[in-house]
């Protein structure tokens, strides 16, 4: 599904990613871990197409297409979804109106007809239940005045609405209490299938107790320095990142 080869990314002329290689197949969950400043969020942003993130080298192939040539909205329509670490507050645009616009643009891209108001509302209610989003949030301005937990649940709600092929969760666990974490993880797990894949970017192992990864990768200084199965996350939790850093220093 996703093939990242030798990806180099700069932000404001400062190199952040220095040759990332990663292959994600349908049905898989990959966790990207690493200390602060290692480039985790940069990887997520570059995949979603954020403009300030300049790719200087390497390729990214998604569903056989060159992802790096595509505008952010084209990536989304082809099935890439980024759950933001800091969802943006947008006064004056309701969540419902926003989702309707997005879903219909994606449906048009897939050659599906526009959803009528009744079907849209029905779909929305059903997906809201999944992450226990309160109905009153839908008519409020997008993310405006939402609590941290509400914002993150709203991200997963949007993911449930748009049914992406590849979901990238950028530190979705940050700022969540344990109950909200469970709700969010439950939503993500419910949406997992053999046809889609998930990349979980996180600093802590905690989220991975709920969203169990097939692979764990450690990103350090802009490269993946170690990969393994879910046990690697536990090992990191126990030993900290210094253990990885020390290993690299002696190697």
């Amino acid at each position: 599904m996703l093939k990242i080869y030798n990806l180099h990314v700069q932000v404001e002329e400062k190199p952040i990613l220095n040759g990332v290689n990663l292959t994600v197949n349908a049905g898989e969950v990959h966790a990207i871990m690493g200390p602060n400043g290692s480039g985790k969020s940069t990887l997520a942003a570059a995949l979603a197409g954020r403009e300030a993130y300049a790719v200087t080298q390497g390729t990214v192939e998604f569903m056989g297409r060159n992802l790096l040539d595509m505008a952010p909205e084209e990536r989304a329509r082809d099935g890439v979804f980024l759950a933001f670490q800091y969802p943006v507050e947008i006064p004056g645009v309701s969540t419902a109106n926003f989702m309707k616009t997005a879903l219909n643009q994606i449906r048009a891209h897939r050659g599906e007809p526009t959803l009528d108001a009744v079907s849209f509302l029905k779909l929305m209610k059903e997906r809201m239940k999944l992450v226990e989003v309160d109905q009153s949030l839908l008519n409020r301005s997008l993310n405006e005045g939402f609590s941290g937990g509400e914002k993150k649940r709203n991200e997963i709600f949007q993911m449930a609405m748009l049914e992406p092929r590849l979901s990238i969760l950028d530190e979705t666990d940050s700022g969540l209490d344990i109950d909200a974490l469970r709700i969010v993880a439950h939503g993500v797990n419910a949406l997992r299938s053999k046809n889609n894949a998930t990349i979980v970017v996180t600093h802590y192992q905690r989220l991975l107790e709920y969203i169990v990864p097939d692979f764990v990768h450690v990103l350090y200084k802009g490269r993946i320095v170690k990969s393994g199965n879910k046990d690697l996350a536990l090992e990191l939790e126990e030993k900290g990142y210094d253990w990885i850093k020390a290993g690299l220093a002696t190697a």
Partner: protein
Amino acid sequence: MGSTVEKKDLLERLTEGFEASGYSGKPERQKAIDALRGRGLPHSKSEEYRFTPVVRALEATFEPASPVKPEIRGSLRLIKDTLGSQIVFVNGRLAPEQTRLEKGLTLTFAPLPALQPGQDPFDILNLAFAENLVTLNVDNGIELRDPLSIVHYIDNAGFVFANPRWTINVGETASVTVLEYTVFAGATPYFNNKQSTINAGKGARIEFITIQQGGREEVMVNNAQVRLADAAHALCYTCTLEGRLIRNNLTMTLEGEQIDAHLNGLYLVSGNSLVDNHTVVDHQKPNSFSNELYKGVMDENGKAVFNGKIFVRQDAQKTNAFQSNRNILLSETSNIHTKPQLEIWADDVKCSHGCTTGQLDEEALFYLRSRGISKDIARGLLLTAFGSETLEGIRHESIRGYVESLILKKLHPAEAS
């Protein structure tokens, strides 16, 4: 030097043009003309009109009018399902046959007021050329269900110089929505030099909504005064969508206590247009509240000016007065001059002001696009959301809906169909 002597100044040319279209000057008006001759029309060095070259715009477009008998073609209604009272000015003069009033409303012609010190020069110009002062009295306790429309109908085949002047006296506890707009059926540039006053009695509730879309050739100076008595509730909304040069001078005077006053404005400026909003909120008595929110979106070579003065007089303790001006510039060649001015003589007040100017929020744009929304539609969504905030508080759903559709048409063409 010979050429400057031969060249008549704008005032002379306006006078001649006006006379050519059937105007007969009255001697008392000569005072106003003399007053203007003394100080002249404002030029680029006049502080209040520094960024707004009304005279230059007029000189560039002015042509002597060929007398035409204006004819009303098409509908004068702005919003279909409102059928309230209407006062119609045709090329600046009251058209009694088009004017319709409900019970509780009476129209009179008052003598033109005397000159005041410190009067705006275009107000004086209006005094010199206005036919009369159209005065509408709204009886105490009257509640108008539909908006009262004030229509400026412009029909021209040559330059029209219109000087409508009206006053509405709203009785105690009466409730009125005034909806003022221009219907432009002509083809050539015109100058609408309007003066209006609303006096709201005790406990009256007024909404004064001005929608400016009088064609690309419009030059307008819109002098508007609103005076509020005790416990009055007022909302002024000024929405400018079109025009070569539009200058709004809105002065709201809070003459009583326990007043609730709102001033909202929206200007969407593109092409080579210039829109200038000068507002004054004058708190004269204690315990009143005012809130002002003006927002603008400038594109292409659009230029805008916002100047917001708030006065809190020494008597006006416990005043709450707030002001905010927010602007988005969409092009390199658009610009905004914004200037808040607070003058506070009372010591127990809460006042604040703030202004922002920036581009469209890139973070928000990316967020919307990352969900599959195209750049154009995302931009339209954000801009309409930005503009629509100014509509909050307008009671008539039909007016809100109508202005929303105008905003959509201008800022979000993909969704407006």
